[in-house]
């Protein structure tokens, strides 16, 4: 028998006994899965049926060795979907791969009947199916990993966003509280974000508040200075607020030149200065004219 013959036979087998194979498979999965609540029964059945149908179609094309071939596109897409969904809902990679591997037994059982009397044929077909399902199982693990990696990258982004919240205090006045320890690499990214936000909001003045920064070293101080210089080049200005006594000492010790940068101890003071600079004044009710 040629490869194509095997492929056609296997494909036909799956198609003819889809219901049986499917039922056994689902039973296997439910027995094996520890956290069956992660994937509902209905969903499981649906996935299994879809997979079997797709498997049968793909097998018919004859490319049983190469799952990258386009005849396997539908199967791979389906597995990617299932894998991603499970990754997002908290399954483990093993559970996801088990989805594919646990198909082996029901399939072998069916093939034993289908190839009855043809020991060599059964051996060949079994081996072919075995390696095929191994490859597909590994494929699900890779997809799972990739989805997890994407989640991690997105979380890192969000974390970075959180560390540069932007508060619009008034027309043209932004407050940018920096939070947490600033290492050199993070500071650079944070500073770039600040400048971008100035552009996005069209702010005239950005108040960089460092109350939430425990320590400032030379590199951080330098980056702060460079950020202010860059903001000025762009046409905006910066005020630094929230300088605690220890940080003030550090800055002086480091010899950082703050001569033409306005610094205020509190955000409130900085806000008043910013208002003055942008030509706004706050008037108390009942104040004498």
């Amino acid at each position: 028998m040629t490869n194509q013959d095997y492929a056609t036979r296997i494909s036909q087998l799956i198609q003819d006994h889809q219901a049986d194979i499917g039922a056994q498979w689902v039973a296997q999965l439910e027995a094996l899965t520890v956290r069956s609540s992660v994937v509902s029964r209905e969903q499981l059945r649906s996935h299994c049926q879809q997979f079997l149908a797709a498997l049968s179609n793909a097998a018919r094309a004859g490319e049983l060795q190469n799952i990258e071939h386009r005849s396997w596109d539908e199967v791979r897409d389906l597995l990617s979907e299932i894998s991603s969904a499970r990754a997002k809902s908290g399954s483990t990679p093993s559970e996801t791969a088990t989805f594919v591997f646990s198909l082996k037994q029901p399939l072998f059982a069916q093939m034993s009947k289908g190839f009855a009397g043809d020991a060599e044929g059964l051996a060949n077909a079994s081996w072919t199916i075995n390696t095929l399902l191994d490859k597909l199982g590994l494929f699900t693990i890779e997809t799972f990993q990739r989805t997890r990696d994407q989640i991690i990258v997105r979380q890192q982004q969000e974390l970075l966003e959180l560390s540069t919240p932007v508060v619009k205090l008034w027309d043209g006045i932004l407050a940018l509280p920096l939070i947490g320890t600033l290492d050199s690499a993070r500071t650079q990214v944070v500073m770039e974000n600040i400048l971008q936000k100035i552009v996005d909001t069209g702010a005239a003045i950005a108040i960089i508040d460092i109350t939430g920064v425990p320590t400032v070293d030379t590199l951080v101080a330098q980056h702060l200075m460079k950020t202010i210089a860059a903001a000025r080049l762009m046409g905006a200005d910066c005020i630094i607020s929230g300088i605690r006594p220890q940080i003030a000492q550090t800055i002086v010790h480091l010899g950082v030149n703050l001569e033409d940068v306005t610094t205020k101890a509190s955000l409130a003071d900085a806000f008043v200065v910013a208002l003055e600079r942008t030509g706004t004044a706050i008037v108390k009710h009942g104040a004498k004219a």
Partner: protein
Amino acid sequence: MDRIPILRMGDLLLVTIQVDMHDRLAMTLQDDLTERIVSDGAKGVLIDISALDLVDSFIGRMISNTAAMARVLDARTVVVGMQPAVAITLVELGLTLHGVKTALNVEKGMALLGKNIF
């Protein structure tokens, strides 16, 4: 050789730099602007660099020189729309663009030119 177009709006000259300028083109722009300030009797020059993803020392000097020449001719210059990455690079390069007023965008630039704060 291409020339960068200079638009006139009242007594303002507006230049939008949108191409990667080679040195000769930058020099031509400087000359053209200076000429137009005189011929059009312009009081203000607005240079829009929001499309420039690169400003090196030559272009920086062209901008400074243009602003200086404009001042001599009793016109004010404002450069608008500098991209953050460009600003950060210029700071690192050590280019200060001293004596050049800047604004975040064309709208603010025009407002700046309108005020008599020069």
